[in-house]
């Protein structure tokens, strides 16, 4: 279990993480979501005692990270793919980490095989692809067979087969009763992996909810309707008190969108007015879109907030992926 209590990190005037309070529980995959620059990596570094919090604290198994004896056997972390000296072989990289925590030498070979790097253990990582580097990072996280796993963007640079492998690995680790905390800026990826979500934007907690709850609350649903006689359809909808807006996005040309599920009302209205319909269906917005909407609102709120009290909440966040 990981507990964050009022965790805050400020760099000068910029607040990277603002009073983050939440609990990451064992036995499930907890997705940590937010746009790039939202403070995910900073939070993870503070959990590991690498960055000092400005205020608040982070506890693992009830203790600050620095108080753990042989921390690698309690917490395994993939922080960045290249936390590796390029001139030290994969085997020796893992060996020096293992030795410092009293992990037996044979475990090094085991984790190398586990992540599919058994063949290149004697090679120097400077020739590794991004995906291989990521696998080596995952191997170091698994080294101490820890109860808690922290992965920062684990699928970055992996090919589809690798992504599939990471997804299964995360699910398996959680099924074994471990605490699995994994960050991503890709909602679509999390939708396939996580049971629980913690969403942050500009360092602030936006949502701490189950995946199902998140979908329920945030994925907007709408009814799309299109007719060759668009003007008459619009009149009919207006007179029936159904608010419609022109649809946007690819393949939307000329279609109209209505909030919620209105297929029955629109179908009956069209029959009554003898209107030809080419499309009538109920859509649920993608989770990706819901997530983007949630974080975008937060960004805008923050920007206004910052302008008002002149604290300068920081630049607008970039969005990738």
């Amino acid at each position, binding site marked *: 279990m990981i507990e964050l209590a009022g965790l805050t990190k400020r760099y000068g005037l910029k607040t990277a993480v603002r009073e983050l309070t939440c609990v990451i529980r064992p036995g499930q995959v907890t997705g940590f979501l937010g746009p790039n620059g939202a403070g995910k990596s900073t939070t993870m*570094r503070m959990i*590991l*005692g*690498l*960055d*000092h919090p400005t205020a608040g604290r982070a506890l693992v198994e009830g203790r600050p*990270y*620095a108080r*753990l*004896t042989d*921390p*690698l056997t309690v*917490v395994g*972390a993939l*922080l*960045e793919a*290249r*936390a*590796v*000296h*390029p*001139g*030290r*072989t994969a085997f*020796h990289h893992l*060996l*020096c*980490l293992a*030795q*410092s*925590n*009293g992990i037996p030498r044979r475990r090094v070979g085991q984790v190398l095989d586990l992540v599919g790097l058994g063949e290149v253990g004697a090679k120097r990582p400077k020739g590794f692809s991004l995906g291989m580097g990521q696998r080596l990072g995952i191997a*170091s996280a698994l080294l101490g067979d820890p109860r808690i796993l922290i992965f920062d963007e684990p699928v970055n640079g992996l090919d589809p087969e690798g992504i599939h492998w990471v997804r299964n690995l995360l699910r398996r680790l959680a099924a074994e009763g471990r605490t699995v905390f994994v960050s991503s800026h890709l909602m679509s990826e999390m939708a396939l992996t996580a049971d629980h979500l913690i969403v942050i934007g500009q360092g602030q907690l936006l949502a701490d909810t189950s995946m199902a709850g998140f979908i329920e609350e945030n994925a907007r649903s709408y009814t799309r309707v299109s007719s060759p006689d668009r003007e008459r359809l619009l009149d009919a909808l207006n007179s029936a008190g159904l608010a419609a807006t022109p649809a946007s996005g690819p393949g939307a040309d000329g279609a109209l969108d209505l909030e919620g599920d209105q297929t029955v009302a629109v179908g009956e209205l069209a029959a009554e007015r003898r209107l030809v319909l080419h499309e009538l269906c109920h859509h649920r917005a993608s989770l990706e879109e819901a997530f983007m909407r949630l974080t975008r609102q937060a960004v805008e709120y923050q920007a206004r907030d910052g302008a008002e009290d002149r604290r300068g909440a920081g630049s607008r966040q970039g969005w990738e992926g």
Partner: protein
Amino acid sequence: MSHARRVLLSEWTKIRTVRATVWTLASALVVTVALGMLISALLNNGFDDLSREERLTFDPTFISFAGTSLGQLAMIAFGILVVSNEYGTGMIRASLAAVPVRGELLAAKLAVATALALAVGMVTSFAAFLLGQLMLGDHRTDLGQPGVLRAVLGTGLYMGLIALFAMGLTWVLRSALLSFGVQIPFFFMISNILANVPATEKVGDYLPDQAGSRVMAVIDDGGWPYGPWVGLLIMLAWVAAAVAAGWFVLRRRDA
């Protein structure tokens, strides 16, 4: 195995599994000995051309250590690399996640690397002395003469300490580029200039390498304001300050 021993073993693995650190130590030995032999041989051949005063203060021990001026740069490079290897690559985060008590990581790394630098320094010092004397022919001295053994042991100590000084400073500077850019020019040129230009000579004599190298001389030519052991103590104070600064920075800053 005790906790401290585990961390020491881990640091030993880190040093021996990167080629560059091993090579810098090897070149410290080779450069110091080879250059010392060359200069000893040249002076032996040209001894008769020296002035009367130069002949009177001729110090065969000091001459055989002439190679340390270049060899120490390799020692400094070793000290820089041992620490900057962690930073250039993000390895420091993996290291601190494994050993989160920062003082522990720093102490283990410095202990292992300094022990190694001292061992190589001692071998270098004895080899440079013995082979240098071989080149000096009739002008040679031996370990039995007063002050000679002290100078040879002191030179080994100097080589280890200069590496430790570089390590301490690199914990502060954190980048290999910056550390090399500051330390190599300083010890190669700037320190020597400061110690030899009349305007800055008095201050320059107290720089770490100038003070430390006093121990290499057996014959006092009157150019030093202090004796060999005081010189070494001055150098030790510099080293202690560099290590303390490194520890302070490592403790305070985010990794």
